[in-house]
């Protein structure tokens, strides 16, 4: 093995000499087709005592003037890096060659951990509740079996009032001997929790109430005797109808995307006045009109209104702070099932209560 001659330590000569060496490394590197040759290459260049790099380095440094030593060092280092680069690339290549034989069929299915699936209703309910929590609402709950008083009377449904007809009520057996207000029934809406909340807490109040409700409805694709609602109540000084509009407009944009528009139109609920139904621009067609929105461009989604003064009268004995001359507020209620069905394209409400894993596992 010969040591190449270095004519002088001038920059030009160094450049030429190291250029030669780099080409030599490059030539050697093209012949590394077996692991043995790679090892031989390594020893030839980087061997500790007899390695070519070491020997050239010793020879050239020995006679180097002090001012050239630094330059030499840098250049040797660069060369060493070139050699190591070749080696590490070869090592990788070698390993690859070895493992080709035992390669995995990476197109086989992965082993997925069997996670459970969230229920679309619970997921939707939590999403809605979360939106209002971020707007400063507390969360409340109430019993599923209610008295006539909380479900109807305190909410300004007088006994024998036609408004009661719209809510076919499932009643608990053997209530006839009790006064009407004490009779037990399955709550037909989450609104009784408005009364329970106000009885327990003076204004201001901001609460959102998720829950299960029941009606004596025969089941079909869009009706179920069991369904879910999220109720909301906000009472304070100076709460206005435009606050109600702004709040629900914001909530619907959070739930369905900022492109969604809301519109409000008059409706009737005994416990709110003014009362409104809220439509959102169709989330399927963007308002142009499609089968889902019956070509109207709008989808009816929830009921709301300003809390009727008669409702405050129901709680004033326990909480005198609810003086309708001083405070005002709004309430709203939305059907979670309907929203979930719309969001996830579910065509039959019965699926939500079937426990059918083929259906539910789509929400994993």
């Amino acid at each position, binding site marked *: 093995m010969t040591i190449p001659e270095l004519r002088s330590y001038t920059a030009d000569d160094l450049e030429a000499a190291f250029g030669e060496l780099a080409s030599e490394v490059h030539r050697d590197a093209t012949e590394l087709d077996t692991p043995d040759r790679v090892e031989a290459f390594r020893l030839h260049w980087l061997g500790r005592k007899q390695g070519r790099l070491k020997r050239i380095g010793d020879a050239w440094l020995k006679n180097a003037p002090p001012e050239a030593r630094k330059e030499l060092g840098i250049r040797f280092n660069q060369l060493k890096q070139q050699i190591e680069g070749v080696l590490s690339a070869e090592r990788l290549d070698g390993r690859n060659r070895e493992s080709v034989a035992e390669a995995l069929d990476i197109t*086989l299915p992965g*082993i997925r*951990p*069997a996670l*459970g*699936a*969230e*229920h679309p209703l619970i997921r939707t309910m939590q999403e809605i509740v979360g939106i209002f929590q971020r707007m400063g*609402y*507390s*969360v409340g*709950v109430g*019993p599923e*079996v209610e008295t006539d008083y909380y479900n109807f009377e305190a909410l300004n449904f007088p006994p*024998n009032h*036609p408004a009661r007809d719209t809510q076919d009520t*499932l*009643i*608990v*057996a*053997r209530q006839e001997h009790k006064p009407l207000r004490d009779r*037990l029934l*399955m709550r037909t809406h989450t609104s009784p929790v408005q009364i329970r909340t106000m009885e327990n807490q003076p204004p*201001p109040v*901001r609460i959102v109430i998720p829950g299960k409700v*029941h009606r004596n409805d*025969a089941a079909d694709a869009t009706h179920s*005797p*069991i369904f879910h609602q999220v109720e909301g109540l*906000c009472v*304070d000084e100076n*709460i*206005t*109808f*435009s*606050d109600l509009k*702004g*709040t629900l*407009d*914001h909530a619907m944009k959070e739930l369905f995307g900022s492109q969604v528009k809301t*519109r409000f*139109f*008059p*409706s*009737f609920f005994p416990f709110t*006045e*003014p*009362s*409104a139904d809220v439509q959102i621009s169709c989330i399927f067609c963007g308002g142009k009109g499609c089968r889902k929105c019956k070509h109207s461009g709008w989808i009816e989604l929830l009921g709301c209104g*300003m809390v*009727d*003064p008669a409702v405050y009268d129901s709680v004033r004995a326990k909480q005198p702070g609810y003086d309708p001359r001083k405070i*005002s507020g709004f309430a709203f209620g939305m059907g979670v099932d309907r929203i979930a069905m719309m969001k996830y394209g579910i065509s039959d409400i019965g699926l939500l*209560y079937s*426990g*059918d*894993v*083929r259906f539910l*596992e789509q929400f*994993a």
Partner: protein
Amino acid sequence: MKILSSWLRAYLPGLQVSDRQLADDLTLRGIAVEGVFDLGPRNGSLFEMDITTNRVDAMNHYGIAREAAAIYDIPLLPLAAPLPGSQPVKQPFPVRIEAPDLCGRFTARVLRNVTIAPSSGQVAERFAQLEQKAISNAVDATNYVTMAMGHPTHAFDLDKVEGSIVVRRARPGERLKLLDGTERTLVADDLVVADEKKALGLAGVMGGWDTMITPGTKNILVEAAWFDPGSVRRSSRRHKLHTDASHRFERGADFAAPPVASAMVSGLILAAGGELHGDPVDVVVPEIAARTAERPAIPLSLQEVARILGRTAEGKALQAETVERYLAALGCRIQTASAADYRVSLPSWRLDLEREIDLIEEVARLHGYNHFANTLPSFSGSVVELPSAGKENLVRRKLLAGGYTEAVGSTFCSASDAAKFSHQPNVHVPLGNPLSEEVGCLRPSLLPGMLAMLAHNLNREAADVRLFEMGTVFSGTTDRVQERPSLAIGATGFAIADHPHFKGRPFTFYDLKGIAEEVLSGFATRSLYFDAFPAATGLMPVWLQPGRSARLVVDGETIGFFGQLSQDEAQRRKLRQEIFLGEFDLERLYRHSLREPAAQELSRFPAVVRDFSFVFPESIAWQSIADRLRALNIAELRSVGPVEIFRDEKAARKTATLDTGHFSLLLRVVFQSHERTLRDDEVQGWWERIAAALQQLGGAWRDKVR
């Protein structure tokens, strides 16, 4: 309810907008048009309406025309009811109201020598467009007037009326055959229109058979009255008769309407011939007039309008002129009390308006809700989370991560399931009007629903199922119902499905126990154990298979039961696959706080692992082995666990490696110290103590058995 746009336009000569625009504008003001159907050229449209229950005044053409006049600020023609002159009579027709609390007004008109014939002209045309069945001019006249102005009326065959008209309470047990052909037995709370001898009709609900108009009718008495809404509603419900008339009266009819309605009906009948006899009779109960048509004016302040409604889209409160215009268009009379305060007299047809807030709603409605701004309120209160929210989240998260899918089942179950799954035997709460017997009781447990859902899946060839439900269960009596949150878990089929890389395996008792342990591990508990009651104690629920089920006890309180569904129950439900299920009392569980994780120092010294291969008699439960080793109080004993358990299937045969009634256990213990590397001699010492303890329990070294 169906409405003809052409009929509306007849009252609104100034109406310029298209039918479709009219429908939209009405809908946005709360008079909801659900459908618009074109009736062909020059016929306008048919509107399918959905009027809210409080707006009985708008359940007719004139009422809707009034709304349109208010919306567009255009004139509304008065209702015309031209009548021929009347023949003089000696005495007005005698009418007596004997129940002045239930009937506030009764008008009667006598028509003689009428001709009963099919309707013709505008009535026939409009009936055809509305697909309303025509009967005869007299009957159609009453229906037509109801559709025109909303006030129900009735026509009696006067020759069948004996003596005066008397409006009275029914005599208990009194019988009345109605127009629908049914005979009803009345009670004292039913109001009837009667003559001196008999009841002629159920007031405000349905007329009677005996006095109905027939082709031979010559003379007619036209009734137009005002009946108490509550009374009509009670009768309607009692007799299960929901009629067009009762629908309107029970929502509050217009007290001022009867004379107009009577005139309209009479005019329509007389168009085919006949004459009017005498002046109309009009008996008014002043107390009821004072409560309805003449009720006192109510105050309205502009400040209150602004306080409730907030700002309009232009950023201002509603202006005085705007408020005044809307109210006037609705038929209110407005007196100005001061600059910003009014006294508002209410129209007789709007009994739903009683309070200031009702007027504010009307103002908002006519202005259009969407012309108000969207603002967000500021808030001065604090935010509170439900105390159990974090716990519920943790339970749900663990179950989902553990591979259980959340389900929501029925709130109801059959009485037999309620009895079987109730925590206190035979205590359950039945419904008074269930949808069916299968769902006749409030569920005392989530398990009947869980079993139904598992069966639902198995019947649909979904064989591998893991479900949970978190919901309310009910106990107590029909006098007092208690509710508590509960958790049910149900599983069947494979816990791990076959995969190209390994064999699957079926779900076992230990999977169920494992998920229970996992959920429990999230809570701070002092003590926790599982036990199995022999069937004889009666403590284990009947739905569980003895020997394959357990009770979970936390800090001395039973939290739940779980295990394999009993063979009896499985057979009864035709469930051929093994079913595992359990129910856990979340109210009790939630009394424990969530475990706050605390990091422990990790040892820097190596651990030493030792295995023991022992044979034990079947009477030794793992728990007793674990307890015994813990009792040795070896501080460096890091963990003790069973690694392998072997039961010889061939135990009874000669080739058996184990005696009958024995099992072998490979036990692994790990020693480790936080302070130092363990010495061989001390490990050897512990090893010997453990071996001795195992022998004391009845164990023997596996290799020394034979």
